[in-house]
Each structure stands twice: as C-alpha cells, then as structure tokens.
C-alpha cells in the first residue's frame, strides 16, 4: 500500500507542481514583459516635450497620401521639393523613416511604427550615445526649472531631420575695445540698447509671419 499511496501523492504533487511551474513561468514572462514595457516608458523622463514642429498645414500626411498610390521606388519627388536630404542620403530615402502605408507614422528600421511625437526613439536607433545624453538632460537645450519642471525638446526642434547639421549664425556684436570707448558722463546721450532685444523681436516677428 505504501508505495501506491506515495505514487498517488507523487502523481498529485507532480500535477500540482506542473501547474505551479506553468503559472510561475507565465507570471515570470508577464512580469518580464511588464518590466520591459514600463522600463521603456520610464526611460523617457516625464518632462513636457512640445509637439513636433510641422510645416503649416502639412500634417496629417494622410490628408493627401490616403488617396495616393504607394510608390516605393527611390526617385526625385514632384512634391516636397523644398526638402533636400543631407542625412546619410546615400544610404537612405524618405520611406526608411516615413512609413509607406500609414503616412501619419514613422517607422523603425525593424518596420515597427512610431508616432511623430516620439520621434526621439527613431533618432536614437542610430544616435544611441546622443539619445542617452538627451535623456539625462545633457545633450540639447533645457529650459524651465533646474530643480523643478523642465522643458525638453524633440531632436527635430533644433535639428532639421533632413539636414541635421546646424546652420551658421550671425554672432552678436563683440565687446568694445578699450581704445574705442567714447564715454562721457553726460546723461543726455542716448543709452545704447542691448542688441539681443532687437534680435529676439525680429525672431518673434518672423515666427508670427509663418
């Protein structure tokens, strides 16, 4: 009898064990999935990133592209002629980053889709070290509070994704050389203005025009 009982017990135990194993395994898998998903989400600091800087009236792309036939051959476009690709243009073309079938999305090299709001993931595919620094707040411009809410920017707010290299700027005027100082105490003279003020004004006027 004894061995039989033990067999039964063994059998029951093994069934229970098998169930347990299954549950444990699925739980493990689930938790792994959860961890990777949440880790990916937590990776990006919860800071305000403004919406992508689309040209006016260009988005959603499906507004035009929905009715167009998809042509995946590399060619000179009749539309978007103002976009000149200078970003590894030998190896790349529009549809390597823009998704052919759903134009309102971008795509990874793997084919997975990504929204324009999260385009930093797309850039991060190649520029991994820069992406790491950006997440830490070291690459790129930060404004806001040093010990509070920070304003992040998308890569494309500063870099034109089609021509990412910065365009040269006109510098503000150099300081006055000691030899050139023409100071008099008379307060009637017009006080020189900060050249930055006029620059900021012209930039905001320019932004309003567009």
């Amino acid at each position, binding site marked *: 009898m004894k061995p039989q009982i033990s067999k039964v017990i063994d059998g029951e135990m093994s069934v229970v064990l098998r169930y347990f194993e299954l549950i444990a395994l699925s739980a493990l898998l689930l938790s792994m999935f959860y961890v990777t998903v949440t880790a990916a989400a937590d990776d990006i600091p919860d800071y305000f990133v403004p919406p992508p800087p689309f040209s006016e009236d260009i988005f959603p792309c499906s507004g035009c592209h929905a009715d167009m036939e998809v042509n995946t051959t590399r060619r000179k476009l009749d539309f978007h002629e103002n976009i000149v690709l200078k970003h590894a243009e030998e190896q790349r073309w529009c549809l390597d980053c823009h998704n052919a079938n759903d134009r309102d999305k971008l795509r990874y090299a793997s084919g997975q889709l990504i929204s324009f709001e999260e385009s930093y993931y797309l850039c991060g595919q190649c520029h991994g*070290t*820069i992406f790491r*620094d950006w997440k*830490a*707040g*070291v*690459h*790129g*411009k*930060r*404004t*806001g*509070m*040093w*010990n*509070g*809410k920070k304003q992040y920017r998308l890569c494309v707010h*500063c870099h034109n994704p089609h021509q990412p290299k*910065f365009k*040269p*700027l*006109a*510098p*503000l*005027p*150099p*300081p*006055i*050389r000691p030899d050139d*100082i023409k*100071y008099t*105490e008379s*307060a009637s*003279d017009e*006080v*020189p*203005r*900060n*050249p*930055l*003020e006029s620059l900021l004004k012209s930039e905001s006027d320019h932004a309003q025009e567009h």
Partner: protein
Amino acid sequence: MRKNTKKKIVSRPVDRRSVLKGTVMGLASLAIPFGTADASIWESFFQKHFREMNDDEKQEVIERMKTEYAEEYGVDFNIRTTNPIPGVLFGYGLDLSRCIGCRRCVYGCVKENNQSRDPQIHWISVLQFEKGHKWVNIFEEATKYYNPHEVPEEDFFYMPVQCQQCENPPCVKVCPTQATWKERDGITVIDYNWCIGCRYCMAACPYGARHFNWGKPRVAKEELNPEVHYLGNRPRMKGVVEKCTFCIQRTRENPGRYPACVEICPVGARKFGNLLDPESEIRYCIENKRVFRLKEDLNTSPKFYYFFAT
C-alpha cells in the same frame, strides 16, 4: 613766568581717544551733504554688512532701496534677499564641442542682470581659439573681439569664460572690507554697498571675471529687469565691482529657473545643477564626460566644468 605756567597745567577729563573720536565724527558729519541730507543718505551711509543684518534690518534696507530705485529709475523693483537652499551647491557645465561663439549668452546675461550698457560691462567673455594650437594655458592670447559674418568659423573654436565660482576664491581673500564672500550654495557674491572700489579682487581673479563700474552705469529704462536680488542684479553704482552670480535671483528659488545664459544658448551647450544631487545634469556631465576646469593648477577649485561631449 616759569612757575606760573607750571601751575596752570591741570589734568582734564578729556582723554586723547575722545578728542580723536570727536574730530573724526565731526569731519564725517561735515562730509554728509546737509542740503539734501534726508534719512535715506544717513541710512545707506551707516548700513550694516549684509551678513550682519537680521531679517527686519534687511527688510528696512530693501524698502529704502525700493524708494531710491523708484525715484532714480522710475521702475518698481522687486528686490529679493533669498537665502541659499540647504543641500544645494551649484555647479555649471559648458560643452566646448557644441559652443559656436554666437554671443547670445553674453547679451542674455546683460539683459537679465542689468549690466551697464554704457560704459559697457559684459560678465561673459567668449574667447576664440585657433584649432590645433596651444590654448588652455595661454588663454590671455585668445581674442574676444572676433566679428565674422557667421559663426562657427572654420579652424576656430570658442570658450565662454565667466565667474568660475571657485571653492577657494582668491577674490574673497583679498577684499579689505569683506564686501565679497562665498555663500553656502557656492556662489561668490558682492554687497555693493560695502565695496569701496579698490579692485584688489579684480587683480586677484585669475579668470578676468570681475568688472568695474568706471562710470555711472546706464541702462535704458525699458530694458531694466525689475526682478532682482540684493546680492546679484540690482542696479549698481559707480565705483563698485560686479560679476556673474549664476543668476542668483533666478536659481535660488524653489523651483528656480535656469540661469539666463543656459536658457538662451541656441545649441544647448550650457548645463546647470546641484553638485550634491547625484541625479542632476551637472553630476552626469562630471561622471560621464571628460571634464576639466580652467587653471586647475592655481588650486582655486572652480565649480565651472568645461567638457567635450561626443
């Protein structure tokens, strides 16, 4: 005759010390212009050192200054005396591989900190260096007067220099009136009311970060920034020294804004944060980038880190 004079010498209850004291006080009172002598002049003349004032005394001084500034500039200033935030030591990072020498920071600083437009004072100097030459030890030979149509120029790179907020500041050591000192959050500040304009600190500073008001500072009324700190960007007078304070009027708040130069930099080369916070941006720079500090051999131990990001 001789006997008479000897008899006349009588000891008086006035000693040498009180005579000297009386003379000095008498002369000092003559120096104060009685014609316009109102309470304000007396009070500013006998104003205590900032660190010796209690909160009430500070408030009195602030009120007095507000009326003085309103009279002089026609602008209502909001003058803060915010204390350092406990557990904060400010540090600054500057990415030399990003800086393009556009001088936006120079004038952003001028806008924020009410520097005199004429005579001109800039707290930030952007130095231009030729690539491939010896540079960091001979930076006096660099130029800050470069003026091409566009920057960055081929074959050149740029290094903005401002107050390095040394942990061991030589300027503080030499001040004869203790008008400048290092605060607990690491910012070296100046009480302009105690500065006598001897410019010892300017001679002592190895970074050329201190600037002197040779004339009465002049700023157009519309360009004045009315949000000021007593130890920072409040309007200065002729004959005092001034310098970068990491925008003390912004950064000492909780939450506090980034300094103006960080905010305006178009290439994001400037980084700022709390050196005591392991999660801060500046700590990330120090731990992950190749940082250096200017003239480290002088043992001034700046809290301003230059680095080259990849």
